[in-house]
């Protein structure tokens, strides 16, 4: 039995250990946000986070997830309560047919730098045939980045500490 966490919930899988993580998520757990586009790690549609790092779930045998944390697009906001990144995709037309979107969101949510050039490099492992990418780049660049907020908050904290020391 392979035991791991999916979107914060403990899950176990009893089938063949080399079944693709993609199929286990979709078929065994009913988590269909993660899509198959090419089945060979080229298009990025099946991207999920494994211990916080983006991986293409079509190339990951489920046994590799043993004891680890998997996050899928289902872990983000719900339709009535989109998270800031999703909201930015909604507002900046970052989604058209939507098939590449869940995977893109997973990678985009882990980008450390979100200036347009960094986004183009950081998301280059994802294919989208609808948008020509500009609206996706804008969606990611304009989204309030939790990472950036966190570091700004930390910086502010350090500055306050320094002032107090003075």
């Amino acid at each position, binding site marked *: 039995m392979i035991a791991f966490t999916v979107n914060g919930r403990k899950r176990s899988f009893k089938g063949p250990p080399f079944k693709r993580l993609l199929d286990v998520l*979709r078929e065994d757990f*009913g*988590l*269909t*946000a*993660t*899509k*198959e*586009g*090419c*089945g*060979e790690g*080229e*298009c990025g*549609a099946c991207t999920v986070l494994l211990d916080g790092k983006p991986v293409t779930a079509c190339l990951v045998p489920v046994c590799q997830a043993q004891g680890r944390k998997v996050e*899928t*697009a*289902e872990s*983000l*906001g*719900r*339709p*009535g309560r*989109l998270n800031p990144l*999703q909201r930015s*995709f*909604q*507002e900046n*037309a970052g*989604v*058209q*047919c*939507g*098939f*590449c*979107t*869940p995977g893109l*969101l997973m990678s985009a949510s882990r980008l450390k730098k979100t200036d*347009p050039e960094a*986004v*183009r*490099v950081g*998301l*280059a*492992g*994802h*294919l*989208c*045939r*609808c*948008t*020509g*990418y*500009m*609206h*996706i*780049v804008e969606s990611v660049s304009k989204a309030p980045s939790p990472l950036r907020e966190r570091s700004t908050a930390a910086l502010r904290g350090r500055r306050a500490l320094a002032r107090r020391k003075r």
Partner: protein
Amino acid sequence: MPRPPAGKVGAGVARVDAALKLTGGAKYIDDYRLPGCLHGATLRTAIAHGRIRKVSFDPAFPWDQCCVARAADIPGANNVLFIEADQPLLTEDKVMHPMQPILVVGHPDRAQAYEALKHITVEYEEEEPVLTIAESLAGKKLLRGEDNVFKKFLIEKGSVEEGFAPADRVVEGEYRVPHQEQAYIENHGIAAWVEKDGTITAHGSLQCPYYVHKALVKIFARPPEQIRVINAVTGGAFGGKEDYPSLIAGHAALLALKSGRPVKLIYDRHEDMAATTKRHPAVVRHRTAVSRDGRLLAQDLVIIMDGGAFATCSGVVLSRGTLHATGPYECPNVRVRSSVVATNTPPNGAFRGFGVPQAIFAAELQMERIAAALGLDSVELRRRNAWKVGTVTSTGQVLKESVGALKCLELCVQKSGYTRKRKEYAAWNRSKGKPTWRGIGFALCHHGAGFTGSGEVMLASRAAVSLAKDGRIKVLAAATDLGQGAATVFTQIAAQALGLPAALVEVEVPDTALVPNSGPTVASRTTMVIGRLIERAAAGLKAELVKAAGRVPQDRAGLRKAARSLCDGGPARRFEVQYEKPEDITWDDQLYRGEAYGVFSYAAVAVDLEVDRLTYEVKLRKVTTAQDIGKAINPVLAKGQIMGGTAQALGWALLEYADFRGGWMRNSQLTNYLIPTFADTPPMDVLLVEEPYSRGPYGAKGLGEMPMDLSAPAVVAAVHDATGFWFDSIPVLPERICAEFIKAERPL
């Protein structure tokens, strides 16, 4: 401040389906759980041409766990009715291309269904295949009729012979374009089942529910009401899901009928790319007579397309290519001769642009060649010949309104810094020690919106708006949202016509049991033609609401109240309208004379790029495009369409190459059929030009395909500007640029 219009036509509102798609809640066909379903797998031919001698099944394999459907199981006709009925659903003997379906296997386990295919042996009697346009024209083997020609056209305006007589220069060119794969990210897929009452239902990733419906009626020999086709959320199509879903639906439904269980038939990427339709490869020859001051005097053109093994929509693709062959330029004497021929390759079909990218690639490069011959700047040459109000086209159509070609050209020249960059880059390319050569290229095009000629009259599309007794308003149309945003635009149009907030309008799922036949979701017709029908239907509802309530109620409660009298005891009141032929539009299908299209859209593009002096790689720096689409119902979605289509054209020009050998595509993977990534696609500046069309909803014209039409020749022109080399075919791969340098003995 003026109040914003209720329906927000002209505002870049967010897509109605964005939240569902962003949370994984949108259900594409493979996301549905169908208890007890079989998974289908398709056995295909392995030769390009010949006959099947024998199909044998490995007796050691547990066939009792499978359901195998073959041609003999088809209750009706063994062909997929589209424009013609020449394509078998399952082939029994004659093999016309290497990916022809022979039979389908269903198994409760997807992997086992594919495993089963390995336990079937097919013996063939091979014949020599016809693989290229040249072989087909030479009549190497007869695949079709007496000359291998599916369809041919002739357009004549004035007299080409007379036009050539006074010419100062005659310029000739031959241009070639290859296949192109649609490469939507969601592969083809259909689920099918038989309802208790015998209705056969197909649900899946498709563009045109009523096309699939029409095909299934014949295949299963059932009355139309016993066939139901439902559009699932579709992950991109670009023309690729226009006709092929009819085959997949036929296969899935046949298995469902035989097994008595629901069936899912989902292609993987390899099968999708290798078996389904692509853009038609084409050869286009131009011979142009021009005056010294750059006026076109005569155009003599030949277009030949490769249709593949079956007719699909090849004749219509050729027709559109033929009608756009001249480019958006006026010329008194024109002759266009065109044909599409049969080869033993998988049938080619619809892909965004539908024959126009092939025609415009040649027409625009010919303009470059003419400009070079005359020593004129090619933009100036375009300016002198571009269509304007009053122009008479090659079919004798007089352009009466909404001709934004020159406006697009000037705006694009200005915003792209075209003239300045030409000079700057010439200096850059002369100076030593630079890592790249830089260039900027330009192109102009037109795109006829809607079906060609009398096509819209024959389609006689219908659409409706309904008010249910609970106060819900629905748009009913068979037009599908493939990602382009049809559903969002429809809510905007209906709400605007009703004078209601768009949130009060929903769009019904395109389901043949629920919506009228509004024709296919193709030909840049959805916003312009169906949108106009919806506007009219909504106006009908509005009039009744005003009659019943004195005004249009502005909330659900008020609508519910009004619905009580309007619905008159029924569940809903439906306002349905049908396309009406504008009186002044005439078209002669025999002579190809008259109004080819109700209106044309126009676009100009400037592509700014650089070529690496070491690797010969092309890096796109910036694309600027101005597009006259009449009216942007939703400018944000419109720009999304334009940028997406432009990226596809850039891919076709620089990266995409379907490697066909022996009749089949050898690189049917996204690993080696390269489409543009984030890193390949440049920033784009999209400028919307709005020259309103009096018959479009709020002035809107078609826009979906045009962005695909014009960037490829602009890329080639920019590569020429950078390197001095002309390419008459695409993709312009680094190795080809390198080869030109070697050939010219021009070192770095």
